[in-house]
């Protein structure tokens, strides 16, 4: 067994860590306060290959693997979690399905722009009445001559405000998962508009918006994958996405730990640094242990995906454990800071707010446990059971 990152993974790590320390960490609190980020950051990330980490270089990506992607998201989220969400959506939820299911023309038209960071993507699956039960989605797509006409409303769309390219899931057939198809939409397509922009608990700098489709007319060649395979596309996409969220969650957890360590050594009470009190030490020890355990789960899931093997179980385990670790570590970080942890002059209240979303999006902790239990108990025939994608694993 080999538990160390390879030389190139370590170079990715040190590069992204340095970039994040110089370019992101100094503005993290301001990004949180203003709920926005400099758009130039996405271009910078694109020039480094980070907007399409595991997409081949010929399609504008970084040409690396899933382990690299974990390293990248952890380092970005360590500095600022919302930009990790922006990146995660573009990489996992937009570039991946275009790469795995897109036609050559679709790849040349959309993937190269998205993977290189010249354009930004978003993923439109969730609806007001279809969240964890995504297969019940009601947005419709009907064929009209050479076009598809989409009607419905998508919510909680990360990057919804800024996205140039949208992956939209809509019903082209019967009820259930087999009636769903995936589409590529563009900002500016007739009938497509940004609706309500949400105000959130955390990851303020990334936008979360409603996407309204009102007789939205798309040319026939915007279908992604075969008609009726949309749910397959969505689920194959989510496996990789979950590994990325584990990376984001562990970045937040590490921020909570590193900030706690610095504060505990500096803050004095009863005549000594609070790091000398066992009550603090145990919290620090447990944070460090859980982060390490989460990282092993994450790297293993990523490694299995890089081998082209099925990783639904491992991805869910990594996402579940890492996100709960992030929430747990951030909670204890606030406690170590005491009153200072509750005010906005210190970073841990931001980590606390940012951590929560990792237990919710790309499958709640409950959905992850459902996926894990099904795998452990033996496959049950159910609509939510992830379906494997054909083609090369990215």
């Amino acid at each position, binding site marked *: 067994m080999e538990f160390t990152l390879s030389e190139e993974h370590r170079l990715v790590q040190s*590069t992204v860590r340095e970039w994040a320390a110089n370019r992101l960490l100094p503005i993290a609190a301001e990004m949180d306060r203003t709920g926005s980020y400099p758009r130039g950051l996405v271009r910078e990330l694109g020039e480094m290959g980070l907007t399409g980490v595991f997409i081949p270089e010929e399609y504008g990506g970084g040409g690396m693997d899933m382990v690299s992607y974990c390293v990248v998201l952890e380092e970005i989220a360590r500095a600022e979690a919302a930009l990790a969400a922006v990146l995660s959506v573009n990489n996992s939820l937009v570039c991946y399905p275009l790469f795995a299911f897109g036609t050559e023309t679709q790849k040349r038209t959309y993937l190269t722009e998205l993977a290189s960071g010249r354009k930004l993507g978003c993923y439109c699956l969730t609806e007001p009445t279809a969240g964890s039960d995504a297969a019940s989605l009601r947005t419709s797509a009907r064929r009209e001559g050479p076009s598809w006409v989409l009607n419905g409303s998508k919510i909680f769309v990360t990057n919804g405000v800024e996205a140039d390219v949208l992956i939209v899931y809509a019903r082209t057939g019967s009820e259930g998962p087999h009636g769903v198809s995936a589409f590529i939409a563009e900002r500016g397509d007739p009938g497509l508009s940004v609706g309500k922009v949400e105000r959130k608990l955390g990851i303020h700098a990334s936008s979360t918006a409603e996407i309204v489709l009102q007789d939205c007319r798309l040319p026939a060649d915007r279908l992604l994958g075969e008609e009726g395979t949309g749910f397959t596309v969505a689920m194959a996409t989510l496996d990789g996405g979950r590994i990325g969220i584990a990376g984001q969650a562990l970045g937040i957890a590490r921020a909570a730990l590193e900030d706690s360590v610095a504060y505990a050594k500096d803050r004095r009470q009863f005549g000594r640094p609070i790091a000398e009190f066992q009550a603090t030490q145990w919290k620090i020890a447990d944070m460090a242990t859980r982060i390490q355990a989460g990282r092993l789960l994450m790297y293993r899931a990523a490694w299995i995906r890089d081998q082209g093997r099925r990783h639904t179980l491992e991805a869910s385990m990594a996402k579940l454990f890492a996100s709960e670790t992030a929430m747990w570590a951030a909670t204890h970080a606030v406690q170590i800071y005491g009153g200072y942890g509750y005010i906005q002059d210190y970073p841990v209240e931001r980590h606390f707010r940012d951590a929560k979303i990792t237990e919710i999006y790309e499958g709640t902790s409950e959905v992850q446990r459902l996926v894990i239990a099904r795998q452990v108990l033996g496959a049950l025939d159910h609509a939510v059971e992830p379906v494997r994608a054909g083609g090369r694993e990215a």
Partner: protein
Amino acid sequence: MNIVVCVKHVPDTEVPIKIRADGRGVEESGLNHVLNFYDEHGVEEALRIKERFGGTVTLVTAGPSRAVEALRTGLAMGADAAIHIQDPALSSLDHVGTARVLAAAIKPLSADLVLCGKLSTDDNAAVVGPAVAEFLDLPQATAITKLELGEGAATAHREVEGAVEVLEVKLPAVITVERGINEPRYPSLPGIMRARRTAVAARTLADLGIAVPPAGHVELLNMTPPPKRQAGRRLEGEAAVIVQDLVRALREEAKVL
């Protein structure tokens, strides 16, 4: 335009340094090493010249096996080739000796330009670059903040106390660069993958035709940590008394008045 950049793998300046038990070096374990800050500027300058005029960028380092990481970083930024001089005898060399070894590796490359960082952040000697120029018998310009290449010559800007010197240097030349010369790029992921595929040429002193390691001019006798900073002292009492105490302390203890 063939450009050679000398680079060094140095301890990360953010990590606290511990002196080795024998006092003749720093404790390596637990240290994180990186590409020397000024050398990053050297690599960047070389890449910008290459992007404008074409040519190749070759990195050269002399150091232990871990030093290959400095080469990988430079290759990931976009350099084309790298030479790693590795030899047990290297550890006993002083700066002039290191320069002699680097010069021996650079000589057969028929470089149009040799770039070095102004100094390395570990030793702060600023000797190697100028000494490489001497051994190669090339003109040099040091601590350069702006470099413009012309036909067979380069114009180099050098910040001196209160002024900027503008120098003209015949090429080939050795130029050592100051931080202000450029903003180094971050390696890209495709660059990192290319760096991994690029073979690093290994050289021993024997390969370079150096039979006997160059004798040192300087021997490191001992290292001691700087004195620990004393805790601050708060002066208390009436304002008039505090002023008197402060002036006395500044004159007698700090000796700044």
